[in-house]
């Protein structure tokens, strides 16, 4: 029910500005973008899709920041494990 999946906007339907074609991993579907009327998505942008509607745009900067945080934690972890391993060699 809370199922929301990211999809890339391919095109806005010519005579129906509330409808857009999105691509989800090669699968294309028409969805209603009426809920994003204040900030219409353009082709190439990503949206969150829920029951045939776009609920929100996916902010690429925020996504990159989230990834960077996780990479950072991952790197710190790798460094620590590496340090741990080295210290086992006596």
């Amino acid at each position: 029910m809370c199922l929301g999946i990211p999809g890339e906007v391919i095109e806005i339907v010519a005579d129906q500005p509330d409808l857009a074609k999105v691509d989800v991993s090669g699968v294309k579907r028409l969805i209603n973008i009426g809920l994003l009327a204040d900030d219409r998505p353009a082709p190439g942008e990503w949206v969150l899709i829920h029951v045939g509607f776009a609920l929100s745009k996916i902010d690429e900067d925020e996504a990159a920041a989230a990834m960077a945080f996780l990479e950072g934690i991952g790197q710190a972890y790798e460094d620590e494990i590496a340090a741990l391993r080295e210290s086992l060699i006596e």
Partner: protein
Amino acid sequence: MTTLDREQQVLDRIDRARRRRPKVREERITMSHGAGGKATHTLIEAVFLDAFRNPLLAPLEDSACLSVDGARLALTTDSYVVSPLFFPGGTIGDLAVNGTVNDLSVAGATPLYLTAGFILEEGFPVADLLRVVASMRDAAAAASVQIVTGDTKVVQKGKADGCYINTAGVGVLSDAVSLGVAHAQPGDAIIVSGPIGDHGVTIMLARGELDIEADVVSDTAALNGLVSGLLSAVPSTRALRDATRGGVATILNEIATAAGVGVLVSESDIPVRPEVRGASELLGIDPMYVACEGRLVAVVPADCASLALTALRSHRLGAESAVIGHVTADQPGLVQLRTAFGGTRIVDLLIGDPLPRIC
């Protein structure tokens, strides 16, 4: 008693409840009974097996293995009620021939002769019937089988959704081979012959109700060539199944239950096409439960896994074969999946019916 102990007690109690004799509680048949999951299995065991009980039926494999005057034969039957009748990759006719051939092949038999019974709806276009029959002729030729007898019935408009096909198939069992999911042993490798879920997703999209476009076609194919290649290379193959209704998950559960073993598969090793994955994510369904019509699941001894892969991959229909997991002694009766994320979860039999009438 710790919380973990109490939880384990409950899990044991549930396990005992699950092993109780199945009963059909509903008063009427629902679509779940046809989905290939728990309801189907319960119906088969509680109604059909109960009434017809005999040792030849009991194994509940895709084909019955019979001995007639010294000749070992495999016999199978199937019905095809798919809607729509024509879809990317094939027709109901292709499913009918390939599905029957596959049920015989996975028993280790060489498929020889098929029957074809048609139930036609009043008003069904003859042109469509010609298309169906032409595809059956071509599929039979490709599989080297002959359709030797049949039947035709016509029912009133509204009673058959165009065309239903029922088939039976007979083949000769090789003495060298004895296949059955009950033979699976801890350590055995589980192999799938290609990407899963293609057929089910194709049908769902072909119904046109979901407004989804994708480049997916049904994987319907006769697997007898693939199977004989595998069995020559690995005569010690324990079991073969074709993954139809209920998907790969259903077969894994059948292995676990029949052999009293555990099964552990790895999500990242299971081949799935990106479009099938995308469509499944969009709709909230799991490709593990989605029907295939041209995919094999093979259980082979661990030391024969690479040989099996080589044999499968050398055939056109097995080019993307992969080992997806192993049989274990751990948690018998349970199928576990190690997620791409690294955690573990159970893969149970399907409940309900996410994809009605796909074969």
